């Protein structure tokens, strides 16, 4: 009977179905991750991981964020997103998130942190300083108002293009507002060192404008044929320290053609350029031939809406602004949005202090900046409080670390990133709930002093009201644009300063250093992000080694070749790197990527390459009263 039963059962589906089900059962171990199901949304907000900030959409499923994409409804980005902000959710979920307030490595409560900082503030008096890594947020109003209430004006930003431009425009030329550039509608664009399609300014908007401006002619001037230069009509090799002189050389031809500006010092400026920056003199100083300059000047003069976009030193920016005023093209001047807090500084006031000249304070508040990585020599403080959401060199060195919510977990705003052609304001609301014990830095600071607001959201509400925008529309992804035009009547050409400041000054090292930034590699404040390393090419990083590029003639002179391991010495530091030959680097120049060589961070950035900020030389641009990294040189030795 049992044999019959056995045979009989084989004639039914029971055994086979059971075997099939058991095989499925073996696929369902509890440790196998499962997908989250629910409504898939794209929630508009802002991301502050790159310097300009990106208007993004955070992709969520059942309310949980899982990815970031560009916001196609945003008129500025048009759906684009930068490599840093594209990995915002991954950074938000990083194991390096700071999970609670930490005092010298030990966890403390928020109340204890508040009490401690209150005491430190009282003891520091006016010897309190702030370093902000945020160029566009109203959070800076909160920090600057705190400084004002303490009787201090020590508000610092990390070195940035916006600061150089402001020092040139407001500081030297007497202008007001913020300079911008209409790339989309310009018919000739001279990128005077501005790596606009890679790392300069609002990169995503620049790329959109470049793509839309099919008839425009783009030219790139700089020491390295960058990726931006690679897609422009012409690359003009110009050393970084010679950019101001090169630009004044163009002014020579433009004024020779009869162009003028109704500026009080125009005649003085003209005389200065016509005598000090003749084509022959500029050629001798920069290596750019007079014919090349004449050709570029002709191109600019024949255009109906040209624009010159500078990068680098204050002098280079001022020279470019003077050239733009002479050309009368697509350079714009943007008004500043009204302040939310009475005691806060204006943007120009916030950009006044020169961090390269050093920071010294009894109490230093660092907001989402990484000076310990990019400016290790310049910043000294008795007690440092670092506000950040992930671990950095600065949080590792700080006395007190206060975790902030990630961009996608907080209210934040983005006012007129430098480079845009119009004054724009965007607002982001929280998309995710924080999973660690965080507090918005604005809320924390508002709890320290009576600044007129209880929460940072209240400050943002006041900001939105002050500029006449609609909060609901902004949270929905809309952008508020301010159409006013500042008065340009008092602008001068800074002739007395530019004549001296534009003279190229180079360090004493054997080779000029051309540092460059790629957003997938990282910035001064933000290390590369989890999915970005696979996009870093062998021209920047091989294994864990930094790669520097130079022309074959430079390599031959130094006795190195492709793959040679070298030591670069400059400033007060050293870097080790591998050599790559690239004929798109000006002879006598070595190009090195900034943003690598982190000693603190996640597996994607820590120990990858070397930190080029260590070998930058800070030199004083005496005539403009500012400091610059332009003109940095290094010595290179084979190891």
């Amino acid at each position, binding site marked *: 009977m049992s044999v019959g039963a*056995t045979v009989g059962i084989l004639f039914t589906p029971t055994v086979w179905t059971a075997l099939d089900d058991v095989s499925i*059962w073996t696929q369902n171990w509890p440790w196998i991750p499962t997908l989250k199901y629910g*409504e898939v949304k794209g929630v508009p907000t802002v991301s502050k991981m790159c310097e300009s900030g990106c208007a993004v959409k955070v992709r969520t499923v*059942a309310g949980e964020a899982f990815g970031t994409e560009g916001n196609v409804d945003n008129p500025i980005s048009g759906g684009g997103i930068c490599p840093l902000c594209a990995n915002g959710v991954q950074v938000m979920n990083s194991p390096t998130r700071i999970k609670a307030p930490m005092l010298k490595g030990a966890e403390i409560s928020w109340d204890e942190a508040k009490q401690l900082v209150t005491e430190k503030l009282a003891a520091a008096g006016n010897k309190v300083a702030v370093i902000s890594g945020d160029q566009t947020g109203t959070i800076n109003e909160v920090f600057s108002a705190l400084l004002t209430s303490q009787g201090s004006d020590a508000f610092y930003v990390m070195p940035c293009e916006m600061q150089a431009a402001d020092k040139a425009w407001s500081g030297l030329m007497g202008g007001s507002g913020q300079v911008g550039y209409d790339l989309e509608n310009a018919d000739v664009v001279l990128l005077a060192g501005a790596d606009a399609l890679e790392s300069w300014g609002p990169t995503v908007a620049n790329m959109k404008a470049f793509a839309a401006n099919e008839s425009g002619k783009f030219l790139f001037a700089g020491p390295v044929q960058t990726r931006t230069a690679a897609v422009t009509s012409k690359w003009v090799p110009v050393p970084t320290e010679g950019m101001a002189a090169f630009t004044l050389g163009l002014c020579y031809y433009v004024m020779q053609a009869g162009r003028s500006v109704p500026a009080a010092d125009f005649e003085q400026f003209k005389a200065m350029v016509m005598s000090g920056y003749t084509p022959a003199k500029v050629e001798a100083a920069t290596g750019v031939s007079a014919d090349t300059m004449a050709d570029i000047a002709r191109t600019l003069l024949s255009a109906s809406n040209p624009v010159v976009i500078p990068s680098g030193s204050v002098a280079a920016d001022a020279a470019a602004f003077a050239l733009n005023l002479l050309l009368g093209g697509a350079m714009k001047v943007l008004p500043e949005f009204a302040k939310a807090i009475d005691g806060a500084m204006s943007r120009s006031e916030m950009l006044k202090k020169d961090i390269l000249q050093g920071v010294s304070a009894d109490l230093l508040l660092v907001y989402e900046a990484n000076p310990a990585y990019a400016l290790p020599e310049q910043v000294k403080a008795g007690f440092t409080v670092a506000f950040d959401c992930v671990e950095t060199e600065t949080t590792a060195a700080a006395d007190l670390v206060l975790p902030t919510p990630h961009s996608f977990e907080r209210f934040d705003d983005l006012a007129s990133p430098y480079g845009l052609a119009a004054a724009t304001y965007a607002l982001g609301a929280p998309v995710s709930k924080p999973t660690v014990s965080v507090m918005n830095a604005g809320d924390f600071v508002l709890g320290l002093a009576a600044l007129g607001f209880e929460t940072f959201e209240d400050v943002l509400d006041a900001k939105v009201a002050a500029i006449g925008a609609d909060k609901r529309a902004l949270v929905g992804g809309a952008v508020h644009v301010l159409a006013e035009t500042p008065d340009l009547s008092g602008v001068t050409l800074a002739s007395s300063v530019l004549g001296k400041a534009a003279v190229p000054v180079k360090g004493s090292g054997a080779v000029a250093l051309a540092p460059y930034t790629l957003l997938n590699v990282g910035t001064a404040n933000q290390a590369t992000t989890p999915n970005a390393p696979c996009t870093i090419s062998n021209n920047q990083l091989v294994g864990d080694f930094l790669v520097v590029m130079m022309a074959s003639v430079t390599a031959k002179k130094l006795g190195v070749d492709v793959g040679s391991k070298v030591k670069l010495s400059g400033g007060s530091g050293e870097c080790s790197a591998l050599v790559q030959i690239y004929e798109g680097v000006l002879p006598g120049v070595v190009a090195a990527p900034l943003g690598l060589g982190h000693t603190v961070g996640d597996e994607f950035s820590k120990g990858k390459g070397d930190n080029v900020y260590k070998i930058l030389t800070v030199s004083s641009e005496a005539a403009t009263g500012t400091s610059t990294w332009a003109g940095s040189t290094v010595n290179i030795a084979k190891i």
Partner: protein
Amino acid sequence: MEERKSSKRCGGVLPFIIGFLATCVLGWAVIPGLFFEEIEQPIRFSHAIHVEDQGMECDSCHNFREDGSYAGFPSNEGCADCHAVEAEEVMEAIAEAGIDPADYDAIMKAELDAIEGSLLSSSDENKQAEREYVVKYLIQGKEVPWLNYQYQPDNVYFSHQAHAALDIAEMAELKNELSSVVDKSVFDEPAEQNCNLCHLKDIDKSDTPPPFERNVLSGYSKMTMKMWKCERCHALKGQPNACYTCHK
């Protein structure tokens, strides 16, 4: 010797046949049912009311990704578009009535104005189902743990969009070949849409959802489509059966 042989032969065949028939009957009629346990949905949800009475579409509540793949059940946020209840207000009313917020039965029995005023149903039976949803889930901020009749594992990619044009009348011509895949009754009165090919027949018209039948071995639903079923239909319709067709 001859008799013994005969007797032995006879004594072997009969028990064999008995055993064979017994397990055949058990294997076809009894055991398959033992593979499944019936589990009721957490609350009674009437598709009839929402689809027929309110004119809602499948994607009014069920989430789909852009490619047409299923992305999940509705959340309280979606339900609250119609079933709007001020949770804080209700909780205050519960506290005022001296009821334990975790005692759902007591809350429902109390028929608090803060809840009753928000109920949209008219009949007592439907009101009770709606009340249950509000009390047990909506005001508690808990999502309803709906049971998915058509549950497919994460490694299976199924796009509703890709199957939308499948004509059920055309499929009826293959009903014999598909008899082990689809219940033939589906083709008796073909619906306008082809949903019944995979989903519970006329689930969109059901007033009380049938119990979910869970496979005690695999944990999957009885309605979970096994790979061979997908492959059979694909083969009959001349569609690719490569691994990557369904496993992305």
